[in-house]
């Protein structure tokens, strides 16, 4: 196990005829924030349930090297007659009995719930319940924190607080963070796993994913004048694999970034046109996500 908190090998989970997980293998480094992304029905919640010990895999094996594992479901719910402070207090007393009770108010304050700590949770909005769930999960200092869409129901301020909390947990806890919001994953996760149809179709760092995807390296050229002239000039270059555009923007692709970096400016210099900018075409996680889950 070593530096990995989670090590899963070929996990399969069937519900009757439905194959929810199909040979999933993944490793999560201790202290890292691991993003689990995938379309609806990809198996993210099932995988988190397996890792939390709430579901038994049909096949395969996994080890979790953590004594305190906390889970935040995508829609946390509690007995409506409980008060917010009681939810967090109970969590602390179950996970770390005998702890300093001031930790309860501290985490309620951190999640913006201190003012409503005395209120029954039956009247809480979905966003408040999500904050409360996060408070109850984090108060026990979990070694492994499994967050299922933790920011999905939050307003922008709440979402920012959750992302900040996850960032703060880096190094203290290991976080597995499932989300549809790819910007969030891009912001907080060190590594990601893309789950599609119950299979991990990619696992690694974001940089590796974006760099190593099947799409060829591309540059965007912005010109002052007629871009068609640039397109025509580039089309005859043997190192160019694809060129498109017109107007004031041209996109050019080649077999490698090194070739473009060496040849593009040289080629543009031969054309009588004003060049505003030349920059690599950055590809977002969303682009790559759509590509690998296609």
């Amino acid at each position, binding site marked *: 196990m070593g530096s990995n908190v989670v090590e899963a090998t070929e996990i399969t989970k069937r519900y009757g005829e439905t194959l929810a997980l199909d040979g999933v293998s993944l490793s999560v480094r201790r202290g890292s924030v691991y993003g689990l992304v995938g379309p609806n029905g990809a198996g993210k919640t099932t995988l988190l*349930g397996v890792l*939390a*010990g*709430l*579901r*038994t895999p049909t096949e395969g094996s996994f080890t979790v090297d953590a004594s305190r*594992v*906390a*889970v935040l*479901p995508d*829609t*946390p*719910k*509690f*007995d409506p*007659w*409980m008060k917010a402070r*009681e*939810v967090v*207090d*109970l*969590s602390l*007393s*179950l*996970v770390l009995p005998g702890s300093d009770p001031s930790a309860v108010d501290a985490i309620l304050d951190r999640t913006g719930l201190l003012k409503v700590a005395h209120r029954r949770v039956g009247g809480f909005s979905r966003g408040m319940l999500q904050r409360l*769930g996060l408070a*109850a999960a984090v108060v*026990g200092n979990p070694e492994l924190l499994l967050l299922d869409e933790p920011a999905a129901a939050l307003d922008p301020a709440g979402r920012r607080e959750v992302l900040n909390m996850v960032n703060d947990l880096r190094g203290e806890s290991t976080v597995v963070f499932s989300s549809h919001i790819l910007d969030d994953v891009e912001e907080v996760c060190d590594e990601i796993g893309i789950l599609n149809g119950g299979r991990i179709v990619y696992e690694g760092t974001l940089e590796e994913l974006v760099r190593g995807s099947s799409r060829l390296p591309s540059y965007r050229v912005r010109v002052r004048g007629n871009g068609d002239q640039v397109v025509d000039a580039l089309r005859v270059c043997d190192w160019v694999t694809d060129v498109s555009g017109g107007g004031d923007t041209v996109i050019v692709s080649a077999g490698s970034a090194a070739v473009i970096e060496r040849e593009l400016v040289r080629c543009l210099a031969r054309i009588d046109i004003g060049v505003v900018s030349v920059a690599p075409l950055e590809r977002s996680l969303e682009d790559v996500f759509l590509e690998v889950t296609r």
Partner: protein
Amino acid sequence: MSLWRLEILRLFRTHRLWILLAVFTSFGVLGPLTARFLPEIVAAFGGGIEISVPPPSPELAMAGYLGNALQIGILAVAFVAAAALAFDAKPEMAVYLRTRATIQRILTPRYTVNMVAAIASFVIGTAVAYVGTAVLIDAPRLGGTLVASMLLAVYLAFVVALTGLAASFVRSVTGAALISVGALIVFGIIGLIPQADQWLPSNLVGSFDALIAGGEFAYGRSLLSTIILSMGSIAASFVLMGRRET
């Protein structure tokens, strides 16, 4: 905050304790009143038709109390217990609990607090019926009442245990309560077989009238089987709910 306090709060804040108390206590009041004034009630509403009713007696009053209190009371006990024991009915709350405590740690306070609440409500209802009967008619046999109450308390604990077992087969609160009540009815039907009756929990229900009327204690076998079935139901629910996926 502990899981024990959680269960006590559940009973108070959901008003379920008051429901249990209201059921048993109201019949504790009505049983002696009805028995004492039955001739007058029948005369007032009989429409001139002469209906013969037995004279008021402590046995009649206590039997009237128990007959009504147990019918509604068992339903109430089953639903109140199911609301606590079928905790997988709310998967998100189940995740909260199951990732923090073992199934034994979760269920033990739920069984205990619900059994105590059911028995306490029944005992209070019986005490009210006893005092009411003593004031309005005559004091029922104290020894018989105490022994019969003890047997019925064991039976109510069995109802809670059976509801817990039912909750390990279905996730819904209503489903668990109805399965439990249905199983009690089946026990009652099997109890129609004379040889089987003495071994069945349902036999304890009949002990109340008989012991208050001065009958002999002949419930050792059904008491033993009820205790064994209760413990077995609880143990089985630990295993079954422990295996259940959330």
